[in-house]
């Protein structure tokens, strides 16, 4: 391009910006790449000094993550040759697999609680936001403020009342309890975000649908929802990220059946020495669902994250 343009950045500016962005991305991605790599290292490689950048990859960390193992006598080991690749990995260390570890279970708990509460927050949030956006509701502003006010102190500040309440209601260490808790925390965010998005959708579309012979509910599902998809996707990601990463309540309220991955992963460290590859493997797997979910909704998110500011 020749000529000077006010709005179009020059090629030098683009170049500098590109370098900065790539540099920043490398710095922030570094720890993630390190976790990913550590998951495939042997125990020895993982604590080698100076740190190893190239190494012989092994699935030992992942096998350790998913199994519990016991040491056996050489005679026993010789009498029971390994049947599978993972048994072989364990066998080589002079151990045998005693059974599956708790990780799979805890991970599923995270999935159930994370996605369950996300679904519930977005579902209830959408209905509430639509009502707040479209209907004349007595004390509307006060109600909206009240909903927002539930987020004004850090949720953990009410940890003790919630702990006692859950114990009395029999909700401690249950999926239902955790889903309800995360939904309650996320709901204010979801109502406010979604109300913004729904406010942006002109009422004429619904009115056109009413006139075209549809009921109010059909107009909502067929006309409003598709247009709020962007906002719903963005809201869902925010809700999932919170529920997925939440640590403090999870430690406090879950210990067994409903324990999620965040409080579980650190306990891997304690199981027979510091097994960094297993911890890294757990962290890697833990990162995946939110990443996949975000990438799936990326198209919506990029438009939605501007909170309607640039919708045409």
């Amino acid at each position, binding site marked *: 391009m020749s000529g000077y343009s006010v709005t179009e950045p020059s090629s030098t500016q683009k170049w500098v910006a590109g370098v900065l962005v790539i540099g920043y991305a490398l710095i922030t991605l570094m720890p993630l790449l390190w976790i990913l790599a550590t998951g495939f290292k042997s125990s020895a490689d993982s604590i080698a000094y100076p740190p190893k950048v190239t190494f012989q990859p092994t699935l030992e960390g992942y096998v350790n993550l998913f199994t519990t193992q016991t040491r056996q006598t050489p005679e026993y080991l010789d009498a029971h040759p390994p049947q599978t690749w993972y048994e072989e990995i364990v066998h080589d260390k002079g151990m045998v697999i005693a059974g599956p570890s708790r990780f799979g279970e805890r991970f599923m708990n995270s999935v159930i609680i994370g996605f369950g509460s996300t679904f519930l927050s977005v579902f209830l949030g959408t209905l509430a936001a639509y009502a707040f956006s479209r209907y004349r509701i007595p004390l509307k502003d006060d109600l909206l403020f009240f909903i927002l006010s539930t987020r004004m102190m850090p949720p953990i500040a009410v940890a003790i009342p919630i702990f006692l309440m859950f114990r009395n209601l029999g909700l401690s260490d249950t999926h239902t309890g955790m889903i309800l808790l995360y939904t309650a925390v996320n709901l204010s965010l979801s109502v406010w975000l979604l109300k913004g998005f729904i406010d942006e959708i*002109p009422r*004429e*579309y619904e*009115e*056109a*649908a*009413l*006139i*075209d*012979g*549809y*009921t109010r509910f*059909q107009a909502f599902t067929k*006309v409003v929802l*598709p*247009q709020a998809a962007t906002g719903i996707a963005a809201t869902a990601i925010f809700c999932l990220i919170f529920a997925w990463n939440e640590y403090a309540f999870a430690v406090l309220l879950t210990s067994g059946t409903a324990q999620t991955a965040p409080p579980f992963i650190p306990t891997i460290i304690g199981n027979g020495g510091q097994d960094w590859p297993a911890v890294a493997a757990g962290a890697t797997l833990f990162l995946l669902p939110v990443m996949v979910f975000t990438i799936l909704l990326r198209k919506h998110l990029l438009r939605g994250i501007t909170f309607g500011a640039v919708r*045409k």
Partner: protein
Amino acid sequence: MAEIVLKNVRKDFGDFTAVQASSFKVEDGEFFMLLGPSGCGKTTTLRMIAGLELPTSGEIYIGGEEVGQKPASQRDIAFVFQMFALYPHMNVRKNISYPLVSQGMPKAQVNEKVAEAARILGIEKLLDRPVGGLSGGDRQRVALGRAIVRDPKCFLMDEPLGALDAEFREHMAEELRALHDRMGATTIYVTHDQLEAMQMGDKIVVMNHGVVEQFGTPQDIYDKPATMFVADFIGSPSMNFLKFHGKLDAAATSVELHHQKLPVPALREPFEGDMVYGVRPEHITLSDKAKYRGEIVATEYLGTTQIVTLQTHNGDVKARVASDQKAQVGETIGLAFNGKTVTLFDNQTGRALRSVLNEGVLSHG
């Protein structure tokens, strides 16, 4: 198709009355204009007919059936929104077929009807396009397609040309009127543009501050305004108002303004007090012989005619005269009024006094 009748329809939004005691009748197949300045309650009235707002009181009949409190989805009417309100997540074909799908019509028949509507509007080529990239005129046609595709009882249009460029508006107005003439569908059309209303409408209802000021044919409304508001709102330049004070008996044929007798159509009611002598610019001629005098303060050349502004004892007056007539600013000249066309108003209430000219019109206004 159906006739539409409004009886004493009123709409309050909290303490604010948007529409008060509106009554008018739209005949079957009529192209009916709802005209008035911005904020006068046109949209509210139309939305009540559509069922998008429920009237606070009064009755609305569509095709003889009282529908005032029925939801929009049960009224079988079509509405063209000012910004068209095409469903952005559907392509043109889906937009047009959407009202048919709600009726559970079989697919083959839907396709047939959509194709026919598209042919009538000349948008066959656009059917598979998303609505996002369409031009204003094409959006308008798609919106009309969605309206005509299912043979509704009537069409309601809220300033349908308001979102178009001025240049394109005229073209679209003709297209709309032609479409109406072909389909013969009862249409209520909202506009704040008096020219558009005069050009397109079979009948016009003029509203102001939520009140129906007059309803009738464009000619009647132009020639026989029922109120000063209507006289002022319609026509460009608008009607001249010469203020005077006097006492008239029931059959008076002239009034006295500044010691000059001016002609009026024979009155049908006596009146005493402050009055207004209302005369259209084209019903004034300028001649030296006329006794009522005024001083020319401005002229505006319009091609075949010119608008001459004169200062008189009873206020400023605009006259529309042939452009070859000499009119020098500063000159004093006589004004002759075509008495048969004059309307007298009660200056207090703005109401037209009954005369031979307007008595037939005022009785149902």
